[in-house]
């Protein structure tokens, strides 16, 4: 059964000049369509990957799925409920938020440098009211750090004391702290060394099995995607040009843009 359904998702950005300038120069309004009529669905417990080059609208879709950005047209349903529904109550919206979390691209910008790791991990626990007593919260933080391969002592450290890979583990732990069903991974490994990339990807896979998580995996790296995804969607200039399972996509890509993407991977023949 489809867990997340994106239905004719469109997002436009208004890049028009200010009103007064338009009046004087008689320029038309300019609209940039970042995401153009994209539909896909993700089954529970699977990984759906969106690939495409920069500017193809991947991150815009990610932001719409987590509810940071409202679609201009179309809708996203998650477990039968509409995301970005203006009419739902605050409590319902908060319940939805708890179930969809995100791991960000930059391990350097995604953790507040002034907060200790323990506080970073506790914030979602408090915001969603998951554990009331401080002792329980501390226990949960230690458990989370253990799950992502860090030690309980790291809770008192600050983000700058960690390497990029370790920071991404903290970021994953933060996403896990609200016990979500879905994690959106927005290029989680693109800022990491290749050796560290593999560790983080393996961690994501292990966690997926353990907690039966559903991933929406955003990437430009086909090698990464081939190891992670159950299904791949190829985005080009905001349009979904091809959708297939990995083996089929790499064996016989149908769209010329997909072919170009695959050919652009230098060592892909060896993978």
């Amino acid at each position, binding site marked *: 059964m489809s867990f997340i359904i994106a239905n004719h998702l469109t997002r436009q950005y208004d890049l028009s000049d200010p009103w007064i300038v338009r009046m004087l120069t008689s320029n038309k309004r300019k609209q940039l369509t970042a995401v153009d009529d994209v539909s896909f669905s993700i089954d529970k417990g699977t990984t759906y990957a969106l690939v495409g080059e920069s500017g193809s609208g991947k991150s815009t879709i990610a*932001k719409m799925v*987590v*509810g*940071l950005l409202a679609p201009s047209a179309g809708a996203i349903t998650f477990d039968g409920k509409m995301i970005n529904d203006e009419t739902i109550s605050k409590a319902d*919206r*908060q319940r939805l*938020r*708890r179930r969809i*979390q*995100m791991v*960000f*691209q*930059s391990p350097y*910008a*995604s*953790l*507040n*440098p*002034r*907060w200790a790791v323990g506080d970073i991990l506790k*914030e*979602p626990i408090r*915001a*969603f009211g998951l554990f009331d007593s401080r002792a329980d919260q501390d226990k949960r933080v230690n458990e989370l750090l253990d799950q992502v391969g860090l030690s309980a002592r790291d809770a008192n450290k600050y983000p700058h004391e960690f390497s990029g890979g370790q920071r991404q583990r903290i970021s994953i732990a*933060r996403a896990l702290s*609200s016990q979500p069903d879905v994690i959106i991974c927005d290029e989680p490994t693109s800022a990491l060394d290749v050796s560290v990339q593999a560790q983080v990807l393996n961690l994501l896979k292990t966690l997926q099995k353990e907690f039966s998580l559903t991933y929406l995996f955003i990437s430009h790296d086909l090698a990464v995607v081939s190891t992670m995804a159950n299904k791949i969607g190829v985005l080009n200039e905001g349009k979904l040009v091809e959708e297939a399972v990995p083996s089929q996509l790499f064996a016989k890509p149908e769209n010329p843009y997909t072919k170009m993407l695959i050919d652009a991977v230098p060592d892909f023949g060896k993978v």
Partner: protein
Amino acid sequence: MSGNAMIRRFLKSDFFYDFTHAPIAVVSFVVIMVIVTCAIFAGFIAPTNPFDPSSLELMNGFTPPMQPNAFTGDVFLMGADDQGRDLFSAILYGLRISLFVGVMAVILAMVLGILLGLTAGYVGGWLDNLIMRFADIQMTFPSILIAMLIHGVARGILPPELRYEMSITVLIVAIGLSEWVPFARTVRGSTMVEKEKEYVAAAQLIGLNRWQIMVRHILPNVLSPVLVIATITFALAIIAEATLSFLGVGAPRTEPSLGTLIRIGQDFLFSGEWWILLFPALTLLALALAVNLFGDWLRDKLNPRLK
């Protein structure tokens, strides 16, 4: 972290090392500390209480420094003014008022500037335009003029019997309101940078409201330039206070600040009683210079881009 561990970490930090190896910073810091200590403990250090009219001996008027008075035989370190007030004591007590006004005005300007800058930067849109255009308009007037305007308005509003009691408060508000713009501009700029970072998106994801994100997440990350501006504004505020008091719209004659003392001294400069002007002026100079030099060093240290 315990207090002891924090102090030990601070003593080992690059910041402290650089401080001990910058003679100007050390000297200016020592000067500030000496002046502040003297002001705080004025009651113990000063030989007389200049605010107590009964302790004044009119016969001591115009006693030059370090010379016994012709009538009473009293000796004053820095001389006495026209009313026989010991100038050294008057300066110590005056410093208290100057420093108090300076600190409170900076706090007021800082709170206001941070609040407005954070809001303008984070919320953006028409609110940002409104706040920043207002700041632009205010910046076209010299701040001393704005302070005098605020002072004048306050005088008009306050009932006459309160004017006298409230004069220090009015002074603080006038200076504070005239100095908020640099804080707001800096904080707004840093806020606009910080709000695009992903940790802010992560906070939005868990449903925190604007206020929580601004105060808990962004504020701690935009504060380091604020410290630098606060130091430099502190020097400006002390000088502004002295200027206002010199112009006669600041601290009253009965509770003289440094500026009031300089104004009193100026009346007697041409009749040869130079010390009444010189010593308060030198104190003000030392304080403002030390704070400025220390502020400059702090700026270079904490934010090289502001240079």
